[in-house]
């Protein structure tokens, strides 16, 4: 029954996505060649992956706006390491990514979970601080393809069974995270905390520890996203990753992870990211003027949020009932 509830939540978004793809394919024959779909999947891989980590936090009624700065910083650090050392092994790259990402996550997590500071404030602050450090280190330096080991762009443009590598990676992450949230104690605790933090505490859930862990995880995810940035563009400079944090939140919300907390899945967030990307693409493919695209996208976003609200109100009642039963 729980599975049914979860599925109901993501279904409308998934259907909307299919419909939109269908519509675009009908109206623009060029789209049908599959290149369009591939492009959408690659673009949504980065935001979708970030949305996987972000959804854990939003489920608990938190938020992390510093992810764009962290991802940008990691992409630059790995890139300049490669530039200065004539290359970088996969191991070192992952080490830097998780090291830096987790550090930011630890700072955010400690301030929010243990000091009790509001996550919106803390992560806006760390967004500025990390971005400032990043700009300072990257000032005027550009890392280009010839300074990176070839496997980066190889991963960035490679495909598995016709689906871009990066998207497969994001999809796997989303699937694993969704299962973890559904079937582990740790995961279910997140939903409890999001639905009713006071009750969760009284039932004995170690709320601060869960929150802290989710922030550290999200930070590490942001770090790995930095590697994805690097492999996607083989290029890093001070503008890397700028401004994507609100898209990540939007992807989560569209994907059914309500800001109110307690509902939604990382899989839904990934679908939300793909849907956002598809809208952007479809508008162009349907011949909407460049100058109208952002306005239309914004209007659709508002509509999606309103729609999501209605679905959330129905699901919340289900989810809360389930979650309050001690396991």
């Amino acid at each position, binding site marked *: 029954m729980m599975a049914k509830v979860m599925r109901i939540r993501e279904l409308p978004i998934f259907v909307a996505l299919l419909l939109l793809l269908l519509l675009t394919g009908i109206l623009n024959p060029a789209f049908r060649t599959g290149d369009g779909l591939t492009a959408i999947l690659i673009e949504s891989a980065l935001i979708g992956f970030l949305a996987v980590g972000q959804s854990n936090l939003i489920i608990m009624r938190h938020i992390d706006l510093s992810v764009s700065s962290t991802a940008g910083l990691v992409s630059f650090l790995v890139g300049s390491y490669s530039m200065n050392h004539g290359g970088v092994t996969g191991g070192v790259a992952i080490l830097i990514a998780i090291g830096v990402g987790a550090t930011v996550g630890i700072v955010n997590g400690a301030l929010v979970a243990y000091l009790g500071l509001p996550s919106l404030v803390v992560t806006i602050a760390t967004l500025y601080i990390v971005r400032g450090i990043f700009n300072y280190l990257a000032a005027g330096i550009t890392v280009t*393809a010839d300074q990176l080991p070839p496997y980066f762009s190889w991963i960035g443009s490679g495909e598995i069974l016709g689906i871009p590598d990066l998207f497969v990676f994001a999809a796997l992450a989303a699937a694993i995270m969704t299962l973890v949230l559904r079937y582990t104690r740790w995961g279910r605790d997140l939903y409890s905390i999001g639905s009713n933090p006071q009750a969760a505490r009284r039932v004995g859930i170690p709320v601060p520890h869960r929150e802290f862990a989710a922030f550290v995880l999200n930070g590490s995810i942001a770090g790995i996203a930095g590697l994805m940035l690097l492999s996607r563009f083989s290029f890093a400079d001070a503008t890397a990753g700028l401004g994507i944090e609100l898209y990540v939140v939007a992807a989560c919300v569209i994907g059914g992870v309500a800001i109110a907390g307690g509902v939604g899945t990382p899989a839904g967030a990934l679908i939300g990211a793909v849907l956002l990307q598809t809208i952007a*693409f479809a508008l162009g493919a349907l011949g909407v003027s460049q100058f109208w695209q952002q306005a239309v996208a914004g209007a659709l976003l508002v509509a999606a949020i309103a729609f999501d609200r209605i679905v959330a109100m129905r699901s919340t009642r289900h989810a809360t009932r389930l979650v309050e039963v001690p396991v």
Partner: protein
Amino acid sequence: MTSITKKVMAVAAGAAVIVGLAVAPATAAPKSGLKIAIIPKAINNGYFTAWNKGAQKACKEIKATCKYIGPTQATGPAQVAFINQAIQQGYNAIVLSAADQNALAPTLKKAKAKGICVVTSDADVADTKTRTVAVLPASSDRIGAAEVDWIAQEIGGKGKVAILSAAATAANQNAWIEAMKKQLAAKYPNISLAGVYYGDDDATKSAQQYNQILTEHPDIAGIISPTTVGILAAAQEKKSKGSKVAITGLGLPSQMKDYVLDGTISKFGLWNPIDLGYVGTYAAAECASGNLKQATGTKLKAGTKTYVEGPNGVIYLGDPFTFTKGNIVTFAKIY
């Protein structure tokens, strides 16, 4: 002094003046010890790091103190704070690459009122009275026409092309795009323009727009990207997707080297930002020394070269360089 000595001195002085007028360089050497603010659109951008290199070189030669200050975001409002800083700290002159052609006008007027010389270099402002001279690479017409010629060569003079630009509001971009349309209409009736796409000088968005172009126009023959971020993103995408589109535009040789060497791009161009910074700083110093005003025909000597001012105080450095396999490696080492 005896009257004869006075007469001799007068004649000698007169002769010196006559000789001086005939032989004098365009502008006298600038005063030394000037304080000049070098303000780019954004300080973290590699293109402007090169621009500043030229400025600092000039500063050393004329013994001025030059400070490189600017915002992290390339917007007019962000630049205003740094222009104000230059005003408050009593700089003699400002060399500015304007991030916004309109928003800086009130602040520049303030600077002028305080007697600070303002020179734009690389990107100009709309109100030409708010700055003394502008040092620009080449006229928009020539830059736009050159890019169209490059793409036409590659696609054999016929087919569909698209333009991958930066921000929709970027004045120099729009000027170049107009020039491109003119050139297409004038010389290439068999090439049609599919559309103009905006990548906002953002790598992600530019790559996205590249894919958008290919999706909307699968038969596209060429893409012109008059922005270093755009051409790099397009080259990257072309390589990873193995597309058959011809790409050209304006790019930094150091960033594009690989793509030229492996054949992804065969020809593109750019001027040298180092020169822009260098000449701009000389212009600023000369203005601050009282030697340079906005007047058509004035000659500006910067280092070893002399430039002539055109209408509205615009000084062109010359046509952009064309980069091909033959010279890319050399230029990639410079900028």
